[in-house]
């Protein structure tokens, strides 16, 4: 009997001690592609090292399919420990209903705003002056990806900016290399914004997207942008368009295509294929023309857990929130994801060349341009996408008509 009591006491002590240290936390997200799941596995690994357990719930269907599932679980009283979620109106509804944990005390205690590269990243997370989510990375479309293999084929050095790249197109064509690898559909939609900010310059970008100045659209600076866009249209052969952006990544690595403008997540595909920047591929942020690029990020939310949840689970939430923005996790995650870290004070020896270039940009005081999605309403964005899709598919669409249509959309933009 006495022996039993001792054993029971010991067992209880052990249980309580482990319980105080560790808890299981379910984390939902929609990072399911090769590079993405490798990236989120880094968060899981580091979280498990703290003694807690990361219960992974990957949801299919990306932002449009998974986001509603996440929201309905939180609304339905079955919240997960932490979740990736789109910032915006839906998240605001949950915050208003008091279902999302307020992270302001933690943010102040940890001094998040001091080490974030751009405090503007918190804008999408802030509601009534309080912080409700943790931005974990910065994604940007403003990258020109170049294939070193393709330039070896034509015996030219890899271009240092957009203009050199454009100049190399005829030689690439002659050598049977696709000058610009393109994926079908939405992959096109990000490119005009990149040309606007980088060929046209940040001032033009802000005049058009923020001030909605139609005269700026009719200016000679914008004509340069439209001509660059037309040049890109004319060099792409519709029959060479591939189905997915991952296919473009493979084309670049194989030297079959020379370049591509795409979001930094394509780097995740490069990483999965085991490629290194500077060896198999090269990257030029801001197309090598500007050092201000447009960006926005993915964010994690921590739902308010039901009454009676053990303290250790709540502590695990806090641990995870701290971990997501820690130096170590930021490097490990973003290297696999291909995105930029949210802080610049990380250990550069582990970062690859592209991340180092990104950090240089982030360190400059005005490095990040606000993204077009936050400046324009989605209605305006859709009209611009429609125009750009039509212009790109129809090689007889003149630059003049394009500028006029563009100006008309900007005039009525909100």
């Amino acid at each position, binding site marked *: 009997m006495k022996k039993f009591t001792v054993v029971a006491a010991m067992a209880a002590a052990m249980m309580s001690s482990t319980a105080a240290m560790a808890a299981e936390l379910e984390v939902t997200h929609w990072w399911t592609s090769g590079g993405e799941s490798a990236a989120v596995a880094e968060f899981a690994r580091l979280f498990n090292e703290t003694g807690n357990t990361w219960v992974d719930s990957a949801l299919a269907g990306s932002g449009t399919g998974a986001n509603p599932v996440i929201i309905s679980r939180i609304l339905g009283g079955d919240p997960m420990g932490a979740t990736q979620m789109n910032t915006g*109106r839906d998240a605001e509804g949950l915050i208003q209903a008091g279902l999302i944990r307020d992270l302001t005390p933690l943010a102040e205690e940890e001094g998040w705003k001091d080490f974030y590269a751009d405090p503007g990243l918190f804008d999408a997370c802030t509601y009534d002056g309080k912080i409700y989510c943790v931005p974990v990375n910065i994604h940007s479309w403003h990258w020109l990806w170049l294939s070193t293999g393709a330039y070896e084929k034509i015996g030219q050095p890899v271009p240092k900016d957009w203009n050199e790249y454009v100049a190399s197109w005829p030689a690439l064509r002659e050598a049977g290399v696709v000058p610009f690898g393109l994926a*079908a*559909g939405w992959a096109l939609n990000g490119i005009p914004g990149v040309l606007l900010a980088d060929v046209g310059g940040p001032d033009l970008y802000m005049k058009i997207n923020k001030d909605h100045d139609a005269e700026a659209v009719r200016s000679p600076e914008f004509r340069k942008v439209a001509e660059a866009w037309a040049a890109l249209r004319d060099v792409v052969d*519709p*029959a*060479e*368009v*591939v*189905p997915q952006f991952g296919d473009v990544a493979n084309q670049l690595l194989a030297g079959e295509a020379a370049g591509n403008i795409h979001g930094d997540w394509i780097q995740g595909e490069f990483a999965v294929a085991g490629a290194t920047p500077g060896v198999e591929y090269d990257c030029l942020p801001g197309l090598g023309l500007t050092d201000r690029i447009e960006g926005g990020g993915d964010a994690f939310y921590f739902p308010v857990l039901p009454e009676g949840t053990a303290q250790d689970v709540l502590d695990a939430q806090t641990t995870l929130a701290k971990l997501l923005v820690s130096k170590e996790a930021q490097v490990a995650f973003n290297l696999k994801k291909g995105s930029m870290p949210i802080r610049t004070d990380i250990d550069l020896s582990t970062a690859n060349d592209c991340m180092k270039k990104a950090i240089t940009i982030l360190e400059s005081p005005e490095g990040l341009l606000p993204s077009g999605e936050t400046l324009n*309403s*989605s*209605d305006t*964005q*859709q*009209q611009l996408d*429609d*125009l750009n*899709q*039509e*212009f*790109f*598919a*129809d090689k007889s669409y003149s630059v003049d008509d394009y500028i006029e*249509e563009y100006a008309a959309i900007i005039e009525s933009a909100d």
Partner: protein
Amino acid sequence: MTDIGRSGAVSRPVEADKPPGLLYNIFVRNITAKIAASPMVAIVLIVFIGCTLWSVWFSFTDSRSLPNGDFVGWAQYERLFSARRWKISATNLLTYGIFSLVFTMVVGFLLAVLMDQKLRFEDGFRTIFLYPFALSGIVTGLVWQWIMNPTLGLQSTIRGLGWTSFTFDWITNTDMVLYALLIAGTWHGTGFVMVLMLAGLRSIDGEIWKAARVDGIPTWRTYLQIVLPMMRGVIVTTLVIVGSGIVRTYDLVVALTNGGPGLSSEVPAKYVINYMFTAGNLGQALAASTVMLLAVFVILIPWMIIEFGPKKAH
């Protein structure tokens, strides 16, 4: 009649001696049947007619992602009809619709006639031809997308076999993409038309065939001039089903081309969905859907007048 009228009019003593009035006819006559039908009537009134009117009303507002905008008159329609994407969508649907209707009807009828020749393994053939219809538009679109994709499908396969100049790139060609859509659409819809037509053919009395044979009329003329006119009911039904399917064409386009290349295979239903959910512009989307509704009425009303209008005396 008067007895029932009296008993029903107890509560209205003033009108007790008059013949049953309008209100009586509407509310009291056949009261059980009316009660039984009332849920259906309520659903039709609220869900179909009510929601349609709601949609039409909000197409006159400047509602964005939520239906709370102010009345703006015809502004959404002005924008709709000046939008290039809408014009392209409407033209595409018209071209696709006419070709699709003609192809599925003609091919479906011919297949039904072939089936009607007392074939061996008819059941097997019927299943094979009907099978595509069992697939959803999304699956059909995806399968044909893989087949017609120049870098993955038929073109690269045949080039791989040695015919290096073979080109089949309709799906990436702005001028031909509608016909690529047509191939998939016809493949999907023909079997269904065939089955309906076959049922129509089988309902023709055998005596008519015997009479035609006795008169020495060739088989093709019997089909064209005797059987076909007798199948009017089946043909009209098929036309309405296929026609309404064409107006709401959406899933096939999304899976096959997603409107591309560029906007060259956009359809009106996709415009509605895009502006409602992606662009968050409810007013614009509802204006587009109202125009689609009017287009359906333009087709349906003459047909309804012909079918259900005052019958000619026999």
